């Protein structure tokens, strides 16, 4: 079931087209990665989903309701963390967390206190004295303390240290286990890779690729390192094989993923003694897509 559905959304700021026919779909219980470089349109998409700005055309729906018209109703069931968290300098972190939870219409004090403990935040300090990471923690605690059905997170971890990053991933897995859905915009690709079921890659206001990580990997090359008893003849001439390099006793090369089976069948005739195949990392995938699109 689709929790969040964006269909052919276009947004212009004056003469600049920020989004050009974007479509997205987040299903119940999945963590959906939304990746792309700075300025590609991730935040604009999210702001349309929050009903903070209005799409010029197309539809953005959450829980089957219109993101602009039914914003208040929708927001009772979502939690949002912006990438750049600005808070009121003269309010404490504790006050802001309580306010945000309250505005969403819930209150779960034990959960709040547990999260403050886990994220190691001093809630008595004024927000003006917090570092970027601490401000982000305030927003994350407020988000996870709310019993939301959908989490919209816009680069939520860019200021967190590695330990806090782990706490964040834990919270995400707990949310997923509880059947919640997440739209995670990020450019920390290792994080997306660890957490997300499906991803969309956005570039200059357009979605250039969507699907599960496996499906995306299918579109790129797999790295293979092989050692064989007999030398492999004519490796360079096999269709789908690229970047062949020889080392004592074997080869490393890249294979177009759909042809991997064929290639392995061919080299297995040479008595494989060792074989390593590495699927492309999301980072490689990402760079591949960007370079391909020029």
């Amino acid at each position, binding site marked *: 079931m689709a929790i969040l559905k964006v269909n052919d959304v276009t947004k212009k700021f004056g003469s600049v087209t920020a989004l050009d026919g974007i479509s997205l779909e987040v299903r119940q219980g999945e963590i959906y990665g939304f990746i792309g470089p700075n300025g590609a349109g991730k935040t604009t998409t999210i*702001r349309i989903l*929050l*009903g*903070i*700005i*209005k799409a010029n055309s197309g539809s953005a729906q959450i829980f089957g309701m219109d993101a602009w018209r039914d*914003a*208040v*109703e929708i*927001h*009772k069931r*979502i939690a*949002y963390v*912006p990438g*750049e968290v*600005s*808070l*009121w*300098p*003269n*309010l*404490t972190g*504790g*006050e*802001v*967390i*309580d*306010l*945000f939870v*309250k*505005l*969403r*219409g819930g209150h779960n004090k034990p959960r709040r206190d547990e999260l403050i403990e886990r994220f190691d935040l001093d*809630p*008595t*300090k*004024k927000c*003006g*004295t917090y570092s970027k990471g601490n401000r982000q923690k305030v*927003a994350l605690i407020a988000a996870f303390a709310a019993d939301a059905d959908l989490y*919209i997170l816009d680069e939520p971890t860019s200021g967190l240290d590695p330990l806090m990053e782990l706490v964040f991933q834990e919270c995400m897995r707990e949310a997923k286990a509880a059947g919640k859905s997440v739209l995670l915009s990020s450019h920390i690709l290792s994080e997306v890779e660890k957490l997300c079921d499906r991803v969309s890659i956005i570039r200059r206001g357009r979605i250039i690729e969507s699907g599960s990580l496996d499906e995306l990997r299918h579109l790129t090359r797999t790295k293979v390192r092989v050692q064989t008893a007999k030398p492999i003849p004519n490796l360079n001439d096999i269709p789908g094989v690229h970047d062949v390099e020889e080392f004592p006793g074997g080869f490393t090369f890249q294979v177009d993923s759909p042809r991997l089976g064929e290639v392995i069948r061919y080299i297995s005739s040479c008595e494989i003694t060792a074989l390593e195949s590495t699927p492309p990392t999301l980072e490689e995938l990402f760079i591949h897509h960007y370079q391909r699109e020029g």
Partner: protein
Amino acid sequence: MSRLFANTLALAGLIWRRDRIQIPIWVVSIAFWSAVLAAMLPSLYPPGPEREIIAQTFANPALISMLGPGYGLDNYHMGAIMAHQMLLFTAVIVAVMNIILILRHTRRDEEQGRIEVVRSLPVGRLANAASAVLVLVLTNLILGAAVAVPLALLGLEGMDWQGSLLYGAVLAATGIFFAAATLFFAQLTETSRTASAYAFAFLGLSFLLRAIGDISSEPLSVISPLGLVLRAQVYVNNYWWPVVLVLVAAGAPILVAFRLNTTRDLEAGIIPAKPGRRYASRLLQSPLGLVLRLEKTVVTCWAVGMFVMGASYGSIFGDVETFAQTSDLYKQILPSVEGFSLTDQFLAMLLAILSMIAAVPALQIILRLRGEERANRVEHLLAGAVSRNHLMAAFLVVAVAAAAVMQALSVVGLWLAAAAVVSDPFPLRETLAAALVYVPLIWILIGLAAALIGYFPQHTNLVWIYLGASLFTTYFGSLLRLPEWTKKLTPWGHIPSIPLEEVSAGTVFLSAITAAILMVIGFTGYSKRDIIR
């Protein structure tokens, strides 16, 4: 020593570059209006016995409290008139300019983390503060010259070069003093908001001290920098010592500020920030609660300020009364409104002016909605289950209520002080009712601000210009004999000056309706538009 000031000149260049538009606008507009108003004087006050009579009326305590003591009233030439009517007002504006500019380049930059980047370069610890002082001193000197030269060139009666130069020098010295004082306040607090509250409170206090002192006690007035500079008696006796004294006095806050700046941590204040609440109070659970929480300090300070201001003006009613009783001349000149005393007329004027001052905190509150949007914080609220209408309503409710409370407080203060000094005090109930008639006018400005937020979010500051124009036409409308239509451009021109005239319930109702319509326009626009920076 030189290490502390390394690269000061380069930073001063940066300030010039950043303010290359703002500073010239301040300087040119102050100089331009001074010249224009001076040029208008001869047609307003033609020579002859009538002018001498007018001069005598200006010696009344009510006008002294607002304009400063009148010098040269026995020979009330153009120079004396200019210095008496315009110098104090202009000096206050110059002080405001200096407060804004100094904070912008010291505490505000520091708060925004920009000084941190600058200090990571080979730049002295005092270079930033020193560059701000340097630029502001130069700006004030240029401003002084820009005002003085046109005044002298106009060649009006009594406005010679020496007096004009002193006129400019008084403005420059006042500016430098308030720049210095603000630099000191900027060291005390962690936020520029608090520092600006201190600085403006200091300016307000200086004005009040002078108002009370000019009427009852000369030494009290001389303690105030604004009172001191007026002792230069520009165009009459042309004393330079007050200018010198103010400039020397400005050295002290600068030295203390430098000392504090070298010893304190970057981004720290001298007044320490104490740990705050672990949990939000019961109040802070809704947009309305948030607005109240955010505005708590500002509203409290304004409330106290309005009360004190009202009381200060109230305290001079005794002198106004005595003057009215003893001055036959006055009775001859201002019999215009039959059956009403000078105190009544003064009270009417005061109530109007107090309501315009009460509009300042009310407008600050509603404009904060836009400020929150600019600071990217509105999205937290709208991402919660809060509608645009709900959010705007929270700010409007607080602003509308603040307008009424501020006006009421100032009047209560005024009445309490006046009742203590006047033999036959005016009744509190009627005065309060008369004062509250002005409240819907403040609401109109609040409505205008809301409408701007809804449809022209980039131009919300227009409402300040409108308030400034209202203040100007009310304060100076009669003195400068501005045409009647200029008054009618502002809401205040449409309200009868009670208690002199009948209060028409219709006018009050109409103002409230106008305000409501503007607010509805604001709601409509705000819920339709994109949230932007």
